[in-house]
C-alpha cells in the first residue's frame, strides 16, 4: 500500500512530498502547501487508494526548528482499512492554507476548530468562524504562548 501510494503521489510532482515518516506502523506524509488540494483530490478519487473518509483535521505547534505551525489531516480508507496522516507545515508569518472541505465535507468543523485554537486561516472555507470560543475573543488558546490560566479580562464577565 505504501509503495502504491507514494508512486501515485510522486506522479503529481517530484517535490510535492517533503518527507515520509513511519513510526509505530503509522505512515505520515509531509506535503507542500501548494500541492495539498491536488494530492487530496487524488487520494480521494483514485480507485485504488480511496481515502474517502477524512476523520480529523487538527493543528499543532512544532517543536522542531523551521515553521511554527503544522496542520494534520487524518485520512482513512474504508475500502482498504488503511490510515494515513498528511501534514502541511505553515510559517507563523503566513498562516493561510486552502480548505479541503470542498473535497471532504467532514473538514468543515475541524478546520473551524483549528482556526479557533491556533489562528490558522483556511482560505475559501464556507464558514470560517470560531467554533468553541466566543466570536469576540481575541486569542488562540492552544498556542503555546497562551497561558494555561488564561488572560484576565479576555472574556467579558457579567457585572456584579
Amino acid at each position, binding site marked *: 500500500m505504501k509503495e502504491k501510494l507514494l508512486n501515485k503521489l510522486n506522479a503529481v510532482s517530484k517535490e510535492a512530498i517533503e518527507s515520509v515518516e513511519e513510526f509505530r506502523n503509522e505512515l505520515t506524509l509531509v506535503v507542500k502547501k501548494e500541492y495539498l488540494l491536488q494530492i487530496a483530490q487524488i487520494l480521494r478519487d483514485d480507485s485504488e487508494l480511496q481515502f474517502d473518509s*477524512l476523520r480529523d483535521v487538527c493543528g499543532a505547534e512544532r517543536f522542531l526548528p523551521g515553521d511554527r505551525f503544522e496542520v494534520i489531516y487524518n485520512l482513512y480508507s474504508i475500502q482498504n*482499512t488503511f490510515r494515513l496522516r498528511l501534514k502541511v507545515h505553515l510559517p507563523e508569518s503566513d498562516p493561510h492554507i486552502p480548505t479541503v472541505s470542498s473535497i471532504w*465535507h467532514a473538514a468543515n468543523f475541524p478546520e473551524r476548530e483549528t482556526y479557533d485554537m491556533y489562528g490558522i486561516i483556511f482560505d475559501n472555507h464556507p464558514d470560517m468562524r470560531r467554533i468553541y470560543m*466566543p466570536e469576540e475573543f481575541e486569542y488562540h488558546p492552544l498556542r503555546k504562548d497562551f497561558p494555561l490560566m488564561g488572560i484576565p479580562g479576555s472574556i467579558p464577565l457579567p457585572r456584579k
Partner: protein
Amino acid sequence: MAFEHNQQEARNKILKALENQHTTVMFDDSLENEMILNMGPQHPATHGVLRLLLRLDGETIVAAVPDLGYLHRGYEKLAENMNYHEFIPHTDRLDYLSPLANNVAYVLAVEKLAGIEVPERAQYLRVICAELARLASHLVWIGTMAMDVGAVTVLLWGFREREKIQDIWDLLTGVRFTTSFTRVGGMAQDISGEAIAAIKKFLEELPAALDECENVLARNRIFIDRCEGIGYVSKEDSIAIGLTGPLLRAVGVDHDLRRDAPYLVYDKLDFHVPVYQDGDVLARFYVRTTEMRESIKILWQALDKMPAGSIHTHSPKQVLPRKEKVYGKMEELIHDFMLINFGINPPVGEVYHAIEASKGELGFYIQSKGDGYPWRLKIRSPSFCNIQALPMMLRGGLISDVVAVIGSLDPVMGEADK
C-alpha cells in the same frame, strides 16, 4: 361593511388568479415569513448544552446551524500541562455516559506511543470495560430517544438496567461514575470474583429487559411513524461528512474498527457487525439494539476466555508500581517518585489510536517531544464529528422531527465540546 366588501373582492381576485395555472400568488403575510428559532442550549431534547439555530418556513426546517462550545473546558490545553497518568481522570469527563471506554481508548494511545504491550488478562479486562460502557451508553440512548418521541416508560426501563451496570462498576472499579480505571501498562486493580458474578447475573437478565424495551417500541405505531424515513442521509453523504459508528452502519457501510483495525483481543472474539440500509432514525435504532446483543455475546466470551495472570506490564520505568510495594521497597519508591514527578518519557514521535466507542470512532492523537508531558494531544471525538451532519439530516424535515434526529444521533456534549 366596507372592510368585508374589500376582503370579498380580494378573495375573488385571488380565486380568479388561481384559475389561471400560469399565475403564482404571493401572500405577504407576517406569519408566512421565515422564522428563526433558537433551540437550546438549555433544552431537554438537546442532550446537554447543544444549541441549534433553526430557520423555519412554517413547520419546515429550511436550515439548521449547530452552535457548540457551551461545555468547552479546554482539555487539550490541560493535557499539554500534565503528565500522561494525570490525564486519565479527565477522560472520564469526555463521554460521561461511557467513561470506561474513554479510559481504555486513552491508555491504548499512550501505550502505543510508549511501546508498551499489556498482558492478555488486562486486555480481556479492557474488552469487558469497553463493552460494559457501550451497553451503559446505549441503554441511556434507548431511554432518552424513546422519551424524545413520547415514550416515557422506556426511559425508566433503560435507566433501571443502566443502574445495574453502575453497580457493577462500583464493584469493579470502586466508583459508580468517574471510573479512571485504566493505567498506562495495566489496570488500577484486578477484577474480583464478586464483580464477575455480578456481570454474569446481569448478562443473564439483560436480554429479557432488552426484549421488553424493543417490543414496546418496535411494534408501536407512534414510534415507527416518528422514526421511519426521518433524518435520512445517503451513504455517500455519510462518508463525506465523516459519520462513524452506528450512524455509518445505519446507511449500509460495513465498517467497525473492532473488526477492521483490531485492537485489544477483539480478533479472538466472535461477533457480528449489524448493518442496516435505510439511513433513517429507525435504522439507527435497529443498529444500536442489535449491537447491544452483540456486546452481550462479546462479554460472555471475554469472561470465559480471560486467562489468569498479571494485569500489569513489567516495565518499571514506564508503569507505576503497586502501592503496597511503594510503601515497603526502596526501588519501587524511587520509580514511583520518578514516574509521578517526571512522567513516563515516551520516545519522540506521534501516534493516533482509535477505538470503536459507543458513539463512533474515539481517537487520541498524541505528539511526544520525548519528555513527560504530551506536546500535543488531540481528541477525535465522535459526537463532535457526528453533530456536523445535523444540518444535512434536518433540512426539509419538520420541527417535531428535530428531537427524534438529535436522539438518534446520540451526542454527548462533554465529548463534543472537549
